[in-house]
């Protein structure tokens, strides 16, 4: 039998799928954050770039390596049988930004994960989402040994719009990450409401 099943008793549910992006600098905790709430162990999806990376990658000593692998973390949260939220960790290296455009398409919102010791690492992500009008939340991952700053200070340092939520989070903690995700969706909802108001009145 080709597919090992002779009959299907009921049609599979076709869930509505949504995605939230998780961006931020290298080593800021994107994979940890995705893993903290995902119901599947952090999966990685890989793009092999046999041509695009060749002029850039230094393959000295491994000349027979002709492919570059770009990994994107992703996780899944099944909210209901018919409503599934996917989380995508964006590739960290700048030269893979062309992959972001695909990820950002149709994204519900984004989390920009920040580390106060190297806040500049998340500037690029903040710019990206601002330019594309994608609702985002800045989540400051509280690393041990890093100074704690009030969220207002981070807001000012990143020159964010006052409406952009800034939260302190622990990327390892499920409930903390859940609060960050709720903040992203609430922010997206507030924006959607504002968009609709002029049209309906």
């Amino acid at each position: 039998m080709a597919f090992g099943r002779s009959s299907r008793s009921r049609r599979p549910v076709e869930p509505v799928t949504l995605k939230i992006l998780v961006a931020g600098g290298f080593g800021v905790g994107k994979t940890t954050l995705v893993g903290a709430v995902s119901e599947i162990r952090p999966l990685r999806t890989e793009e092999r770039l046999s041509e695009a990376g060749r002029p850039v990658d230094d393959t000295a000593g491994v000349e027979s390596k002709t492919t570059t692998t770009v990994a994107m973390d992703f996780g899944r949260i099944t909210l209901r049988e018919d409503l599934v939220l996917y989380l995508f960790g964006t590739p960290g290296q700048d030269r893979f930004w062309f992959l972001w455009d695909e990820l950002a398409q149709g994204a519900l919102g984004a989390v920009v994960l920040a580390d106060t010791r190297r806040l500049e690492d998340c500037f690029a992500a903040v710019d990206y989402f601002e330019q594309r009008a994608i609702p985002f939340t800045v989540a400051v991952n509280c690393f041990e040994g890093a100074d704690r700053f009030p969220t207002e200070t981070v807001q000012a340092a990143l020159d964010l719009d006052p409406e952009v939520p800034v939260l302190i989070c622990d990327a390892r903690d499920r409930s903390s990450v859940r609060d960050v995700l709720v903040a992203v969706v609430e922010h997206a909802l507030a924006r959607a409401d504002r968009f609709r108001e002029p049209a309906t009145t």
Partner: protein
Amino acid sequence: MSADSSRGTPPGSPAAPTDPQSSRWYDADAGPVVRPYAMTRGRTSSASRHRLDLIAIVVPEPAADDPGRDQTLSPEHVEIVELCSNMPQSIAELASGLDLPVGVVRVLVGDLVEDELVHVTRPVPPAELPDVNILREVINGLRAL
């Protein structure tokens, strides 16, 4: 490791790649046995009308139950149908589960759509804002976690 022996050789030096003893890579280190796009017979895009989104869900059609319906399917095609029969999955999950590049999975799923063995859900189009009610349901769902 054995790759070390070629280190220090100037890039492009003819000695390094031609010497069969210089690089002994086994199993996964040696790379895929079949190059990824060989599975698509060199195609990098599928005939289907629109590019499949990463979170588009692949759902098997009743015809997918039909044994031996299409003898031209590759093992990878069959594997995709089997994975989706257990539970409909997104393009991204399939790529990860099969350890194939997303581009390859898109082409293979495109073939299956053409064969009417599966259909693919379309996520919210990027130009449209997600429905406000859906956003509220997401918030409620997240709070209940």
